[in-house]
């Protein structure tokens, strides 16, 4: 029998106080903070320079992404629930050293040339990025091909470098025959990672880590290269904050030509050209699928794994090993020839059910799981780019918190994250990116689920799909 609550509270208080009393931080904390802030800013500047020197961050979308936009082939209709494959390739900018960097500023429609880089950067900051006119140009290192745009409410006559407490923009410039031009910009507060993006349906997904707090507004536009950014009206949609770490998930529609991604927090901005290039050297492959397979060829368990003679044996093993139900309880089943569907509750007293679809392969693999569905969650698409898996769907869970995990055939967790969906009975859309942290032999599955009250990795419901 557990002790009286007052006793455990007193013991906990005493233990916490004793532990805290035993810890005495060093006295140089504030100096360390200053050094860390300076180092962070220096690292960002280096990244910005490298990024600009890399000429172009290229995300090459093979025709598949665009076919999705205009393809009439019903076999590639994501909404139809079929299995769709889209391949994308990403080029390494350094692999094409002769490529001339696209010019962001001045626009080709402007009959202007800049004799001084600072003039080009100043005009770019306000005329293209839309930054506050209070930004001032600084050139702390005239040799590195970049200048800084620094917010300076005190006025540009006040000299000095960037204040680590404010955001600033590093702008890459080049001297061309026509004068100084701008080829890129990187905010010190926004880390945009298109390389970590993925094609999801007809969209490009890009991660933005904003070091600013969530209440700071981010805006993003994707104008065509050479066009006024204002010509691409901002649409307040398709962005999902991924949590307290400041990561935002931008869902961009696909573009049909060279474009520029501009992400801004009002006082600093990142601007990068995107170039569609179907001939690019592939270094990563993204495949999109919708829903689980239906013929058992890729179902659980994999071809080299276990064999199940009955649908119930396969389903019982699956919900216990893969879905992590604490006390899986069979609520009903339908078996028709080589197809079966078994419904499980996570515990005997639970009312919520998860349905497991199975198929008899008729071979030495026996019964395999081909899909998992639940009324509280749906997976619309799964895409992989390198180690990152992007899953979209809709769900409803307590406090809207949906858990996303990558699993191998044995149910080992290869990676996990959480995302926000609906918190009421209505399902609401979500997009999550989960990184595969460990290698797997055989197929990998993505599972979305609602954790139960234990917090120990057991679930109330789960939905599962194969990762391509």
């Amino acid at each position, binding site marked *: 029998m557990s002790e009286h609550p007052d006793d455990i509270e007193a013991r906990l208080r*005493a*233990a916490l106080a004793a532990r805290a009393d035993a810890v005495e931080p060093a006295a140089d904390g504030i100096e360390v903070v200053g050094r860390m802030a300076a180092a962070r800013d220096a690292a960002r500047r280096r990244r910005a320079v490298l990024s600009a020197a890399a000429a172009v961050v290229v995300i090459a979308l093979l025709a598949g992404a665009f076919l999705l936009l205009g393809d009439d082939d019903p076999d590639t209709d994501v909404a139809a629930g079929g299995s769709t494959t889209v391949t994308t390739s990403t080029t390494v900018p350094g692999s094409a050293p002769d490529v001339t960097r696209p010019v962001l500023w001045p626009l080709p429609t402007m009959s202007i040339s800049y004799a001084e880089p600072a003039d080009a950067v100043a005009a770019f900051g306000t005329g293209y990025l839309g930054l506050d006119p209070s930004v001032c140009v600084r050139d702390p290192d005239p040799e590195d091909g970049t200048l800084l745009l620094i917010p300076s409410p005190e006025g540009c006559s006040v000299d000095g470098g960037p204040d680590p407490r404010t955001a600033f923009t590093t702008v890459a410039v080049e001297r061309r025959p026509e004068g100084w031009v701008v080829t890129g910009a990187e905010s010190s507060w926004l880390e945009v990672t298109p390389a970590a993006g993925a094609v999801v349906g007809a969209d490009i997904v890009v991660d933005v880590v904003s*070091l600013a707090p969530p209440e*700071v507004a981010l805006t993003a536009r994707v104008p065509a290269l050479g066009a006024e950014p204002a010509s691409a009206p901002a649409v307040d949609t398709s962005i999902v904050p991924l949590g307290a770490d400041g990561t935002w998930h*931008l869902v961009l529609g696909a573009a049909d030509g060279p474009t520029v991604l501009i992400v801004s927090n009002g006082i600093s901005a990142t601007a990068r050209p995107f170039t569609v290039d179907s001939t690019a050297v592939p270094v990563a492959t993204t495949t999109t699928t919708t829903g689980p397979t239906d013929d058992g060829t890729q179902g659980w368990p994999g071809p080299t794994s276990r064999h199940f003679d009955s649908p119930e044996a396969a389903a019982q093993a699956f919900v216990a090993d893969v879905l992590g139900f604490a006390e899986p309880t069979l609520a009903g089943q339908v078996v028709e020839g080589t197809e079966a569907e078994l419904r499980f509750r996570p515990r005997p007293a639970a009312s919520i059910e998860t349905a497991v679809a199975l198929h008899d392969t008729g071979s030495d693999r026996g019964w395999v799981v081909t899909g998992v569905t639940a009324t509280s969650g749906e997976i619309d698409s799964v895409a992989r780019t390198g180690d990152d898996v992007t899953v979209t769907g809709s769900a409803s869970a307590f*406090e809207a918190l949906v858990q996303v995990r990558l699993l191998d055939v044995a149910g080992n967790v290869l990676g996990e994250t959480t995302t926000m969906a609906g918190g009421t009975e209505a399902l609401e859309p979500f997009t999550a990116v989960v990184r595969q942290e460990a290698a797997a032999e055989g197929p990998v599955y993505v599972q979305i689920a609602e954790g139960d009250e234990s917090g120990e990795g057991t679930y109330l419901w789960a939905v599962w799909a194969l990762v391509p």
Partner: protein
Amino acid sequence: MMVVVAARSEGVGGEAVDLAALHRDHYRSLVKLASLLVTDVGRCEELAQEAFVALAGRPGGLRDPAKAPAYLRSAVLNGARSLHRRKDPTGRLRAATATQAGPERPDDAAGRHDDEAAVLAALRTLPHRQQEVLVLRYWLDLPESEIAATLGIGAGTVKTHAARGLAALADRLEDRR
């Protein structure tokens, strides 16, 4: 086709905070807070320092400077949580700790700190959110509303985590007797 995206929330603006004063008043407490969730004391200092760096870099400071201590606490808790996830992305470490090492047996711990060590060891086997709620409640003595604001959860959820965490703690200590 031109496509556009947007992120939306509230506007930029606010007051700068006095970082030196905040550091003087809260740094020590933040390191201690981290030490209740992370075993490596050196890492605890880093978590507190990173919280100040994050605060220092907020554009325009905070809209309400009075909330700076809460912001710092949240940053430390987030950092501790991230540290656990990075070290143990699959969650197995915690499970292994719970099932293999577990709370120290009182007779395994040294001297008069036996019980405190056992309580802390048991605390670290709880889900992170429960640990956070218990630490904020029983070490900082924060009211439920402030715990809820710090963790970004509802007050009802705070009560739930506190009750379940305390019950689980008692059970685990009981099991080790």
